[in-house]
């Protein structure tokens, strides 16, 4: 490895993400290289800047009590506890993480339709009449939560999805109590997570489940090609 290659490894070493062979080689070099020691310090700072680019999320107030109680500090609750609000914050965090760093998405925020979509998601999450339905509790298989609002629609947050192959996409479906599945929208995944807003053409009360299938990308679908999972609405 030459000096440039060692320099390039500084950030990954600072993350603790070097494979063992490279790590040993880098550490041996680091001991005698002032440039790399300076590079490591700069890499630490760059990594911090990347982490701190994450939007802040307020944790539940009880956590403050819990943490401070652990140090024998006087605990003063700042606001009453509203469980629903914090559940919303947690889910909002997942949505933010899903869309986070997505420059394409950020660019699309100027698009009115996309803004409207985000507002719909926000409304579903914030509504006191939204019901949560979890599905697929097995960690290895697709699992997640449905946020079901009778008027606004259904928000699906699914984990454990494998990235679709090139030329394929995930498609969300609503399954009526009677009649054929209705395709809703194509969506992709990020780190195994997929989020889909299912604006059903039928009243939610007429639906028995939602489903997700793998389909050829950019091709209209009439029926699911390969169903990945179906989640009953409870």
């Amino acid at each position, binding site marked *: 490895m030459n000096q440039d290659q060692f320099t*390039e490894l500084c*950030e*990954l*070493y*600072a*993350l*603790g*993400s*070097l*494979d*063992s062979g490279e*790590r040993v080689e880098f550490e041996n070099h680091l001991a005698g290289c002032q440039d790399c020691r300076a590079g*490591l*310090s700069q890499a*630490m*700072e*760059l*990594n*911090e*800047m*990347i*982490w*701190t*680019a*994450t*939007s*802040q*999320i*307020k*944790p*539940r107030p009880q*956590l*403050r009590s*819990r*943490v*401070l109680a*652990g*140090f024998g*500090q*006087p605990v003063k609750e700042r606001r009453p506890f509203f469980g629903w609000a*914090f*559940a919303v914050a*947690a889910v909002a*965090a*997942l949505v933010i*993480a899903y869309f*986070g*760093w*997505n*420059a*394409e998405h*950020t660019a699309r925020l100027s698009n009115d339709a996309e803004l409207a979509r985000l507002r719909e998601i926000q409304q579903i999450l914030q509504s006191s009449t939204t019901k949560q339905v979890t599905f697929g509790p097995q960690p290895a298989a697709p699992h997640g939560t449905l946020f079901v609002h009778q008027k606004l629609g259904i928000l699906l947050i699914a*984990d454990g999805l494998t*990235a679709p192959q090139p030329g394929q996409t995930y498609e969300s479906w609503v399954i009526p109590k009677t009649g054929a599945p209705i395709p809703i929208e194509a969506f992709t995944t*990020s*780190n195994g*997570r997929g989020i889909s807003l299912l604006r059903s053409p039928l009243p939610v009360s007429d639906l028995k489940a939602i489903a997700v299938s793998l389909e050829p990308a950019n091709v209209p679908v009439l029926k699911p090609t390969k169903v990945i999972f179906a989640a009953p609405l409870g």
Partner: protein
Amino acid sequence: MAELYDKYAGLLYAIILRSVANQATAEDLVQETFLRIWNRIHTFDTERGRLEGWIVTIARNRAIDYLRSLRSQPGESTTSLEDLEQSGLFVTRETEADRLTRRKAVGIALSQLNEDQREVLELTHFQGLTQTEIAEKLHKPLGTVKSLVRSALKVLRTGSLPAAGSR
């Protein structure tokens, strides 16, 4: 500690939640983070060091330690994350204003990454995966992953340089 909590809890919670994607686990790890800060704050030179950097690094490392324990890889093949929390690594001569400017520049650089670069960066920075693990996860050749990581970091490194910032 209450002041530290009020100032940093939102940021630490967000970073940890982004990694572990579970509210209860994130709360446990935030508590563990503050405990570690409390136990080691006496070793930190707050006059010369970047306190926020140190705190954020501790939080991120707790999340990665947790994820690695789930993957049954408690740091055997990777750098000990504890070694990367030594206060000497956080010494800086920059002013707060300079750092703020650079931070904004990094934010801009992040938005310039393409989808593949963002994906590998998420996996290195927030999931703690090595390049080999990323290659396996994404079913991509190791060389491709290394190239993606290198190019992503180059964009950010260049973007974070003061001269290339948003000043």
